[in-house]
């Protein structure tokens, strides 16, 4: 009986050992995992900054004033560099924290850029119709006024010409 219990305990210990080793192999060391996570976070931050810049560029092309966005993008860029430096130094927690901070700034820039773009497009449409209306109405009024002036001028000119008295020229010779 004692021997059987000892054998089972031995088997259980082996099983536990195998499970621990398998667990370590499948998850890797906690340190390496932390570095991988931090590296992924910095990569995400980099992508977030690029997307935020794309959104700011779209807003600028739509005619929005993006100077405020550019200031904040520079802030995000500086934090991203800090995250990369921390990652290079092996400081995973600092890298992940900076990357998170960078993503936060980039996402706020992106949403603000989208709002600015919509607003700028609306404004541009209003300006487009305003300018078009001004041009069309302005040309129509100008041409009508010019035609009226021309008719009056022509009438006056004809009347003036008809009312002229013929001049008699003397031939001294």
């Amino acid at each position: 009986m004692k021997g059987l219990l000892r054998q089972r305990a031995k088997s259980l210990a082996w099983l536990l050992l195998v499970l621990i080793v398998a667990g370590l192999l499948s998850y890797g060391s906690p340190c390496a995992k932390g570095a991988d996570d931090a590296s992924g976070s910095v990569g995400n931050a980099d992508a977030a900054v690029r997307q935020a810049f794309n959104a700011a560029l779209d807003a600028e092309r739509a005619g929005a004033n993006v100077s405020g966005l550019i200031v904040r993008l520079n802030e995000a860029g500086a934090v991203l560099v800090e995250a990369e430096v921390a990652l290079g130094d092996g400081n995973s927690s600092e890298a992940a924290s900076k990357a998170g901070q960078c993503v936060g700034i980039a996402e706020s820039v992106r949403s603000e850029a989208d709002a600015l773009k919509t607003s700028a497009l609306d404004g541009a449409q209003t300006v487009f119709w305003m300018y078009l209306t001004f041009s069309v109405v302005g040309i129509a009024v100008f041409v009508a006024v010019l035609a009226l002036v021309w008719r009056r001028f022509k009438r006056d000119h004809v009347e003036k010409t008809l009312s002229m008295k013929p001049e008699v020229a003397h031939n001294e010779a």
Partner: protein
Amino acid sequence: MKLEDYKQVFAAVGLVGVLLFATPALGLVVHLPSGQKFSELWVLGSGHMAEDYPFNVRENESYLVYLGVDNHLSSSAYYEVIVKFANQSESLPDTTAGVPSSLPGLYEYRVFLQDGQSWEQPLTFSFSQVSAAQNRSVVGGLRVNGVTLSVEKPEVWDDGNGGYFYEVFMELWIYNVASDAFQFHNRFVGLWLNVTAS
């Protein structure tokens, strides 16, 4: 003056008037070509002037220069300034072929600039673990803006110029929206340095 002559004057005035009134609408559809598009990259000495550049540098002494970028691309741009370190036998960027140096970047700046905007930042650097013996020198560490980097860069004695010459150089890269990647912007500036141990 005959009536026909007046008619021509009226027609000319009418044409000019129509063009003037059409200008705002034409401005919406006709875009005149803008000027030349380019970016500038520069390095200035510690006094913000193109002078007093470090040349004879000693181990563990800190040196200051200023890096600058100018955007004249008619739109905002996302730049990367990459700091690299080379000895005389290593490749520098080839601006004729538009190829950057194959050396790894040691430090970088990320800069966003609107059209017409300038950026200038200090770049401080110092060398550590410099050793020289038997016409051979090795720079072990480079510290850029407070970040210490291991470089382990060897160099041989330059008989012609009398020193161990290295170059700290900065490449300008620009983010390409279409390819969603940075590409070398074909500009670089560098500082030739005669590095000596303390």
